[in-house]
């Protein structure tokens, strides 16, 4: 018994210490604020950018910092938001939930008014509760876990990327509505991404009276051939196949289906919407459907943002750059439209005001998902993916 008590003591001490330190930083902030307003006529608006800026997943986080920096530089050059300068607070969470909570506490202590971040779904989830307590809006450019918005647990969370189930939703609507298939075979590669999508698709089809899942199977990636599974699809009488996974297996399955004279539509995800798929599957790729992010290459703001990135950093932007650019623009716009920096006003502005971003003209729904950001359906036509309107 003694051992257990003494084992707990350091933990209790640590909790007290953390509570005390955060109390202290919060107080010191309040003391500091008037001083700042005396020095300048108005204090700067502080936007925190939190994500993975080091470690394995740094390449997902750094583009967001650069995107926010570019937007902020541009705004500050044009006298900021209503005469107030914008200041960035950059914190690293290495995509680890435990560090994300620390980073969240730190940026709150530093006086952040909104947060762009975090990058990974797990880290985002860990930080959101802390932001919610502090009544702070957090907007992620990349956290795609559906529950973050759909659970309704985090009214302060917004994102400029479609959630994982959005692709499955689009695939199912397309198959049932446009292709008018009633019996659907759902396959996946047993991986997190593919199986997750396939399970969402299965759920959506089952909830819809128009269709039924006649086959739900996981396949072994890298197997010598898939003729048994292809025979099984044939046997099930499916009128369309939805596949969750990546292109190497998809191209094998499609080729084997077509060689067996099975012509039913094959619908897949952005793991397949890759030119390698067309290269490998060749003639058999023709007519395959795949969902992918909406094309932004002709959006003028996107073109401008990419050009600004190249000018400043001398290279093409990385992952989620445009999503982070859109998030920063949306937040800045919310400050302007709300004419205030308090939580309720910002949330109201985000939900009601449309804003032009590199991803298109967007606003946010009640749950925090961006309306106007999402996936489009593409089809291989003449050896290229073409968007289906």
């Amino acid at each position, binding site marked *: 018994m003694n051992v257990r008590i003494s084992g707990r003591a350091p933990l209790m001490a640590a909790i007290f210490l953390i509570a005390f330190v955060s109390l202290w930083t919060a107080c010191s902030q309040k003391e500091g604020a008037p001083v700042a307003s005396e020095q300048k006529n108005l204090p700067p608006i502080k936007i925190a950018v939190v994500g993975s800026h080091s470690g394995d997943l740094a390449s997902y986080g750094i583009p967001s910092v650069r995107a926010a920096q570019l937007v902020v530089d541009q705004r500050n050059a044009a006298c900021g938001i209503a005469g107030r300068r914008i200041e960035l607070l950059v914190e690293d969470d290495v995509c680890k939930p435990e560090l994300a909570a620390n980073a969240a506490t730190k940026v709150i202590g530093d006086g952040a008014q909104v947060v762009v971040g975090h990058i990974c779904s797990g880290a985002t989830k860990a930080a959101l509760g802390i932001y919610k307590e502090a009544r702070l809006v957090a907007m992620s450019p990349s956290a795609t876990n559906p529950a973050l918005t759909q659970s309704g647990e985090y009214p302060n969370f917004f994102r400029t990327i479609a959630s994982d189930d959005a692709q499955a939703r689009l695939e199912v609507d397309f198959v049932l509505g446009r292709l008018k298939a009633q019996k659907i075979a759902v396959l996946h590669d047993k991986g997190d991404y593919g199986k997750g999508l396939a399970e969402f698709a299965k759920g959506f089809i089952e909830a819809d009276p128009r269709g039924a899942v006649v086959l739900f199977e*996981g396949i072994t990636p890298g197997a010598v051939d898939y003729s*048994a599974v292809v025979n099984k699809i044939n046997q099930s009488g499916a009128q369309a196949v939805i596949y969750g996974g990546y292109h190497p297996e998809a191209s094998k399955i499609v080729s084997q289906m077509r060689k067996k004279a099975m012509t039913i539509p094959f619908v897949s995800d952005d793991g397949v919407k890759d030119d390698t798929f067309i290269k490998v599957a060749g003639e058999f790729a023709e007519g395959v459907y795949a969902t992918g992010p909406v094309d932004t290459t002709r959006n003028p703001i996107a073109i401008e943002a990419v050009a600004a990135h190249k000018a400043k950093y001398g290279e093409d932007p990385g992952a989620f750059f445009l999503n982070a650019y859109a998030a920063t623009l949306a937040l800045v716009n919310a400050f302007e439209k709300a004419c205030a920096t308090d939580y309720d006003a910002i949330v109201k502005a985000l939900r009601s005001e449309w804003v032009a971003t590199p991803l298109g003209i967007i606003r946010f729904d009640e749950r925090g998902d961006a309306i106007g950001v999402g996936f489009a359906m593409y089809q291989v036509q003449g050896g290229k993916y073409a968007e289906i309107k």
Partner: protein
Amino acid sequence: MNWDYLLSLFMGGLTRGSIYALIALGYTMVYGIISLINFAHGEIYMIGAFTALIVIGVLTLAGWNGMAILLIAAAAAVVYAAAYGWTMERIAYRPLRRAPRLSALISAIGMSLFLQNYVRMAQTANFLPFPNLIPDFACLKPVAHIVRASEIVIYAVTALVMLLLTLLVKFTRMGKAMRATAQDREMAMLSGVDVDQVISLTFIIGSAIAAIGGVLIASHVGQINFYIGFLAGIKAFVAAVLGGIGSMPGAVLGGLVLGWTESFFTGYVSSDYEDVFAFLFLVGILIFRPSGLLGRKQTEKV
């Protein structure tokens, strides 16, 4: 009972099984002669497929037509893979002939990793399309949903290879030397058999057969990358153990049984647990027949 479905699963299993059998032959021959599990054997299969792809690319540019390209590419793959097999034995296994068996095994695993990464760096890590050079015969149209031309070619080639191999081992001087080496290496050496030569030849033949398997399956499936040898190699190894490692008819039987097991299990139960079932089946067989289906019981002489 749906006979068409049953038949198509049977044919699919036969295709898989034939490929497993072609690769398993190499495992089992090498094991039979020097008691070494040559883990790099799957990589020879992959190198065969890559060589064929390169030759096909060159010949297509030169404007040759279908069947001739396939034959030349297959011949090149066989020669190239055989050269790899021979070299591999020379540099990775011969120096360890007198070392404990575990050392040679580690050397084999190292060789496998080396060859994989060598191809990955020298060629590419991406999947590459492999052209389908076996024409779809018009007379097969009505049964296209059950069996394809490329599958019939796979069955025919597998049967032919097995026949030739049996003839070689049973009726030639070299075959006799191989059997002698397999039975007792030292005694064979004393009777004037050039054991080194026999072992080299075993590697050459095994590698050549694996290369044929590589070309056939790549043409059937339509894509390759540097990693295809790994899973195929593991499955073929299972097939060799299932049939009784060291026994050539056993390797073929093991390959076919494994192919059918996987195909029927996927067809009638679920493909989610295809591998689980294949390995459970292996465990089951080994419990009742520890030396495999056709393996001979090893009696340790004291």
